[in-house]
């Protein structure tokens, strides 16, 4: 088996509270593995330790005990950050830089050549739909645009792993869907994604595997489909079915040992409806 994208072993983080005796245990004996190519959703209520876990994986916070690795390289080393892009929760980038200058800056930090930065920057601005805003300062960007430039920044050196802390927080439904589509796009290109989000519906749409944290403890973990499927039920959705067919089906069910639990018209999600009525997405 190939090296996992992220490996977390027996991770514990205890924060001291300044001027107090007590301590906060943000993460407790957490072990989990994110295989390369997966989209992994880390879920949990506020304060359950999601951001802390991500920061430890990125070497921004030192663990109290345990170890974490990115593609087999210890998070304590600066090199481990070569292959990962990070978008923190509610980030603000330098307001006085334009979109293009921002990507240029982060590209230089990754040691990319000038030509490489130019190519990558163009490609990414197009991908995240900010070509027209490339020469505008970030001070004038909307929240959704900031998150998208944040994604582009995270992807500048073509890392194989993306770590996203609430990428859709504070973004309107259309913007949030754009970000979701971008994540799916990265997934298609084989990039591993670790993300945490409160939008469970979106998590359900894009994640292969999820872990649920509560008070720093991983209480559930597994393949998304397995966790939420109802074992003994089957759903059939028909289109343009004539009433006679429906009658026949009901009759057949009545003769079998199965039981019809519910029959109704599927509804589109409120999100879908909202997006349909608010017209085509722009910018």
């Amino acid at each position: 088996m190939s090296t996992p994208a992220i490996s977390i072993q027996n991770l514990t983080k205890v924060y001291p509270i300044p001027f107090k005796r007590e301590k906060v245990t943000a993460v407790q004996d957490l072990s989990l593995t994110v295989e390369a190519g997966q989209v992994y959703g880390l879920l949990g209520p506020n304060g359950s330790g999601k951001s802390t876990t991500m920061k430890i994986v990125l070497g921004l916070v030192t663990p109290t005990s345990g170890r974490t690795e990115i593609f087999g390289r210890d998070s304590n080393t600066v090199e481990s950050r070569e292959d990962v892009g990070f978008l923190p929760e509610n980030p603000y980038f330098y307001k006085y830089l334009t979109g293009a200058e921002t990507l240029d800056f982060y590209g230089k930090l990754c040691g990319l050549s000038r030509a490489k930065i130019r190519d990558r920057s163009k490609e990414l601005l197009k991908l995240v739909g900010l070509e027209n805003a490339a020469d505008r300062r970030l001070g004038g960007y909307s929240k959704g645009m900031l998150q998208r430039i944040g994604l582009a920044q995270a992807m500048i050196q073509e890392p194989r792993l993306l770590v996203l802390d609430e990428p859709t927080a504070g973004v309107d439904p259309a913007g949030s869907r754009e970000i979701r589509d971008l994540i799916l796009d990265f997934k298609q290109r084989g990039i591993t994604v670790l993300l945490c989000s409160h939008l469970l519906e979106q998590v359900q749409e894009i994640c292969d595997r999820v872990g649920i944290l509560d008070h720093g403890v991983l209480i559930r973990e597994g393949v998304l489909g397995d966790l939420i499927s109802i074992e003994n039920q089957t759903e059939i959705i028909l289109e343009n079915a004539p009433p006679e067919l429906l009658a026949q089906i009901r009759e057949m069910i009545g003769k079998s040992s199965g039981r019809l639990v519910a029959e109704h018209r599927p509804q589109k999600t409120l999100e879908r409806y909202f997006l349909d009525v608010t017209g085509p997405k722009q910018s």
Partner: protein
Amino acid sequence: MTAAAPIATKHKIFSPARVTAIASNTLLELVRLKVFYFLLLFALLIIGSSFFTSKFTFQEQFQVLKDVSLGAMSIFTWLLGVLATAMLLPKDIEDRTLYTILAKPVPRFEYLLGKFLGVLLLLFVAISLMTGVFLVILYARQQDALANAARLVPAQALQEQLADIRAATFNKNLLPGIVIIYLKSALCAALTLLLSTFASSSIFTIIMSVIVYLIGHIQAIAREAYLASQTTTALTKAFLAIVALLIPDLNSLTLVDDIVVGNAISTVLFVKTASLGLTYIGIYFLVGYFVFSAKEL
């Protein structure tokens, strides 16, 4: 674009290119904050000071001009160094921009060095511009004085008078004096950077930095007074020694007074003063780095 091998070149332990990127970004930030408007104030101040000295002899006039200009340079660069440095780290931490930078393969040492070099660049640009304004005005005033002398002074005394005017305006002490002003502001910036690595806000950092600045100026006087008195205990002496070690005597870190009265500045004095400044800059920066590298972000 595929998710194959990473395209970054092999990681370097120390990369001047990364430091340069951070330093020039820091300078750009400060420039786009329009901090250079203070230069207008500087120009107004030294031009204004000329109007009040027209009754003085030309020696006195040039003395006042130099005193005001060099004094203003010291204060402006100090203020700029302290204020600009104090906001750098807290702002990056608060806005989580620091996370995005350190999540790239950037060692904390390079980040801090880049920020500090950015401030040093800013101070360099600022003091160069102020020096430019100062020299232009000094030159204009000198030409004015020379022209007046040519009209008013009798022929037999004229050559001597012209030489006196030249001697009272430009002399070779000006440059070393300005270099020391620069070093002093850099030292105060390094101190502020150190304070900001463990302070929680910009305001706290600025206040602490100002207090240390004042201690740096009065400690020598205080020490003399204490040591002269018979009752000073060993404990007090030890305390004064520690303060003296932590904070340099900032009064001795200037050559402005000598320059204004026209004293010659020996190379030895200059080198001694400059090394004192450089040593403290190095120490403050390194201590700041050790605090920052252990900091929980």
